């Protein structure tokens, strides 16, 4: 802690020095009833009209006294209602307050300062979620404002046991990071572990929740082990289940811990629609997952090694289509898979008014012309199309990229060994996923280790009145979710 200098000119000089004479730092000294009073704020983060209208105006009417500090504090406290108002004597905190949009009032001859919140509204409003759009369910999503984000959760869960624990991460960014959980449900061990991992972080800056994700996992894996969501309803659902949420300032994406594999197959609207339909949809998503990982590999295996496994009409049709194609099947698939990935990446990165040009080039030039030029067989285009459509069913881009990685491994294996290659790669894949663990939770739970009760909301979904217990794999303190049954 560094004491505040009693000479306000020296304080102003020092602040300006710390900020390197940045253009947005505003300092003003005015004389109030014979006392020299200094105002410090950053033009870029504060509401300047509020400062002049309320703070300076109120300060002028302070009663005359020898040391005006206490009077000044009282009058501001009584006249300004809607701001944070506090007294500090720590000079080291000045830059944090200034950068956060506070106004600092210093009075000549005092080693204390009055700090008032005059934050400018730099956030966009609450908008609809763009990365996780749903049809049936609430439309709001998290924003960059930390307080608003917490509010969106608090608004939904009014229980005071919903606890927010704040940790500041980043030497320079001092990013507020909040661990949110419901006390009495969430597993204390997991909370302790998360806190331990977060406090260990010693980095210059954290700008998004994605930056701290890798600090929270132990094992390496291509599949993401932490799901992120920008939907408050989803987050609250998980909080009620006993999961722990991490919110990072300036990031609309929250982290949900611990995450299991099936979380990526679930969708936020699953709780809002009829259970039987959701069961079918989930089975469909599961099929899509298998299709998107296996289809190209299966095609290669069938076309180059195990021709005898498919019906004759199909085989002949495939053989006739491949007539005149100069590349081996494996190369053909790899080539078009790569082209599709490039297309997807460029579509994501390009502005919307350019994407129509992209789709024309992608669909017409690559699709039709390549077939006409006998560069690829039509079946390859179909395979690549099915594969990519099925992969886009999932919302988490990390998950999609994880699938992509394994798809290429499967393709390689099947191009070397055919169906046996696919079989052995499947074993490797399942082994690898089953060995993943984070925060004492197996990645494949509740499928492996199997739990009958937890499978009421795994792939098959029971109706909400029939789910009495919280998932056991989360090791929650209170497992009863709803009353009515012992």
């Amino acid at each position, binding site marked *: 802690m560094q004491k505040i200098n009693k000479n306000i000119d020296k304080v102003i000089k020092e602040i300006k020095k710390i900020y390197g004479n940045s253009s947005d730092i505003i300092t003003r000294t005015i004389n109030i009833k014979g006392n020299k009073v200094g105002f410090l704020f950053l033009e870029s983060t504060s509401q300047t009209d509020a400062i002049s209208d309320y703070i300076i105006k109120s300060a002028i009417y302070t009663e005359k006294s020898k040391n005006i500090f206490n009077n000044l504090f009282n009058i501001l406290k009584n006249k300004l209602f809607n701001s944070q108002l506090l007294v500090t004597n720590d000079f080291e905190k000045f830059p944090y307050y200034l950068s956060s949009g506070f106004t600092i009032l210093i009075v000549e001859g005092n080693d204390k300062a009055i700090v008032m919140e005059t934050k400018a509204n730099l956030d966009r409003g609450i908008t609809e979620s763009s990365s996780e759009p749903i049809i049936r369910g609430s439309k709001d999503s998290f924003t960059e404002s930390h307080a608003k984000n917490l509010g969106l959760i608090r608004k939904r869960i009014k229980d005071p046991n919903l606890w927010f624990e704040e940790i500041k991460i980043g030497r320079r960014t001092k990013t507020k990071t909040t661990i949110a959980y419901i006390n009495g449900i969430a597993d204390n061990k997991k909370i302790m572990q998360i806190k331990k991992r977060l406090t260990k972080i010693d980095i210059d800056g954290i700008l998004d929740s994605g930056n701290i994700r890798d600090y929270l996992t132990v094992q390496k894996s291509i599949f993401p082990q932490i799901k992120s969501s920008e939907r408050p309803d989803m987050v609250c659902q998980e909080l009620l289940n006993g999961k722990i949420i991490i919110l990072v300032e300036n990031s609309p994406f929250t982290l949900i811990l611990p995450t299991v594999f099936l979380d990526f197959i679930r969708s936020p609207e699953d709780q809002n629609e009829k259970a039987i339909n959701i069961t079918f949809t989930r089975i469909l998503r599961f099929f899509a997952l298998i299709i998107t990982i296996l289809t190209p590999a299966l095609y290669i295996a069938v076309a*180059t090694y195990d021709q005898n496994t498919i019906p004759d009409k199909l085989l002949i049709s495939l053989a006739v289509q491949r007539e005149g194609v100069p590349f081996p*099947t494996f190369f053909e698939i790899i080539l078009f898979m790569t082209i599709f990935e490039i297309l997807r990446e460029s579509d994501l990165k390009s502005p919307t008014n350019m994407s129509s040009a992209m789709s024309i080039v992608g669909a017409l030039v690559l699709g039709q012309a390549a077939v006409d030029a006998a560069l690829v067989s039509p079946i390859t285009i179909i395979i690549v199309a099915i594969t990519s459509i099925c992969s886009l069913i999932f919302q988490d881009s990390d998950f999609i990229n994880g699938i992509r990685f394994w798809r290429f491994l499967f393709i390689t294996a099947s191009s070397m060994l055919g169906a046996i290659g696919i079989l052995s790669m499947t074993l490797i894949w399942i082994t690898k996923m089953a060995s993943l663990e984070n925060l004492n939770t197996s990645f494949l739970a509740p499928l492996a280790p199997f739990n009958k009760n937890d499978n009421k909301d795994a792939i098959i979904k029971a109706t909400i009145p029939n789910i009495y217990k919280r998932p056991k794999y989360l090791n929650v303190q209170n497992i009863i979710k709803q009353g009515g049954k012992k």
Partner: protein
Amino acid sequence: MKKIILIFICLILCGCENYAELNKLSIVTAAGIDKKDDKYEITLLIANSPKNETTSKEGEAKTTVYQSTGKSIAEAIKKIDKKTPKQLYFSHINVIVISEEIGKEGFFKVADWWIRHPQTRNKFYLIQVNQNKAGNVLKIVSPLESFPSQNIATLIESNKNSRSIGDTASYSNFISRVLKPGYEAIMPTIKINGNVKEGSKRENLETANPKTYLSLGPLAIYKKDKLIKTTTKKETDAIYILNNEAKELIYTINYKNNLLNIFSNSLKTKIKLKNKNEADIYIKMKGTIYETNGKIDLNNIKEIEKTWNKSLKKDLKKLIKNVQNKYQSDIFGFGNLIYKNYPQRWKQIKNNWNEKYFKKFKINIHSNAKITSTASLTKTLEKSD
């Protein structure tokens, strides 16, 4: 890193052994076996050839037929392999057609190669051609199917219901019948109607009335693996009834000098052994009047049923008599029943069963044919005065 390299080396060393690109294969979908002098003539139908003599419609798979002769099947096929630029691929053989000479000589002589070959699937249809060369059957193109082997296969499959030929025609069915004690085999036949040369040309597809086409013929009776005789249409129907294999049947009877067609879609045949030398056959049949061509009093159904039963019995008795005395081949499996019920007796007679004891075997037919409805018309068409 070392582990990854090791795994990679393992994959490369043991992989790629049976690697084959699809467009480097000649997919064989049908084979014909003929006898030419003392050599075998093999005809192979290759389904995915870009250019050839017997082409089908544009845009669909085009087929080629290759022929070669050799002292053995393997030799002939080796010769064909030299003719084709691509590797022959046998796993998708649909149909094997054999000629009458091969049937007379015994199918087992030529069967070995097709079973022993690692690629073949033993799930093909086996069919015998009537009064023609087996190779010619594969050359006939059909306007309704994309290639000849498919044509034969669908011909067999679509007749599965009416004549249950699908079961009979499969290769495994034939083999199991031959190998069962006291059972003899039957094989469906196929016929070429019209000129073979015209049938293999593209023009055959373009006419509305194709001059050359294939049709299923009556059954051929085998003894062991050798052809005895090709039956008639009527006998074929009777064989299906006795084998409990017919699911749909149109039976024509002569009723008071008028022809009456009865359509039967429910048929059950049970064979029960009475004693060592006698068996009962119970036939339950239900039918509806299908067509009449004259004035028939349809109210008197009892009498129609009587006539039907009578004619049914007559036909079956005639067939059984023929099979017992002329063909001397137990295609109904009475011997198998004796083998199951009186194994001691079967040991004594099995060597002379077909020639000596089958003749003396007494068979009683109990038929119970019923007419359930007269379909949409209750009377015959006539002008009432």
